[in-house]
């Protein structure tokens, strides 16, 4: 995270959670990134990342994991984004990124840093 910011890029995180239960007061004021709440799923849908949790998975979360998404997302909101990371240049163009429904797969931090360096390199040319 510090590396990304030292390269002059802003980090912006988005989840479907309501804004009130994600962080303590201290964290809200010290974390140097924007943590955004997409409480109507509008942005997840715009980015084609939105899905409704299938019934079988919902039952597993509730019964086996003791996880009720409504507690975090609000009443009736069994909705999630496909986990995704995008590196945007100043024009908002996606220069690198990954979105994978398998939430155990994430974009390599080294690939994120390389993409930012590539954008900055092109700017200074």
């Amino acid at each position, binding site marked *: 995270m510090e590396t990304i910011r030292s390269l002059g890029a802003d980090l*912006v995180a988005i989840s479907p959670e309501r804004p009130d239960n994600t962080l303590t007061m201290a964290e*809200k004021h010290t974390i140097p990134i924007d943590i955004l709440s997409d409480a109507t799923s509008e942005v997840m849908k715009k980015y084609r990342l939105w899905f409704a949790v299938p019934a079988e998975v919902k039952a597993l979360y509730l019964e086996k994991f003791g996880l009720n998404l409504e507690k975090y997302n609000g009443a009736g909101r069994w909705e999630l984004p*496909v986990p995704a990371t995008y*590196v*945007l240049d100043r024009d908002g163009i996606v220069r690198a990124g990954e979105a994978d429904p398998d939430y*155990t797969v994430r974009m390599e931090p080294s690939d994120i840093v390389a993409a930012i360096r590539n954008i900055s390199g092109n700017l200074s040319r």
Partner: protein
Amino acid sequence: MSLKKRLAEFDASRKRPPEVVAILRRGIDYVRESGAAGLRIGERAPDFTLPNQRGETVRLSDHLSRGPVVLNFYRGVW
């Protein structure tokens, strides 16, 4: 070690019962088939306005006016 390798090792270390793994895998396949594939490389990211952790209104284009942006969608703190 790469993040991918560490996450794979962590997932394996949880030793979930086969029936639980099967449900989670079917869930992942369902999402894959739903066509929620996200943005393509080279595509312009749609602008948006959302509240941040302090209740302030944040616009993507305001961040972009300051430099590149790493945008991360995550499922939640759980």
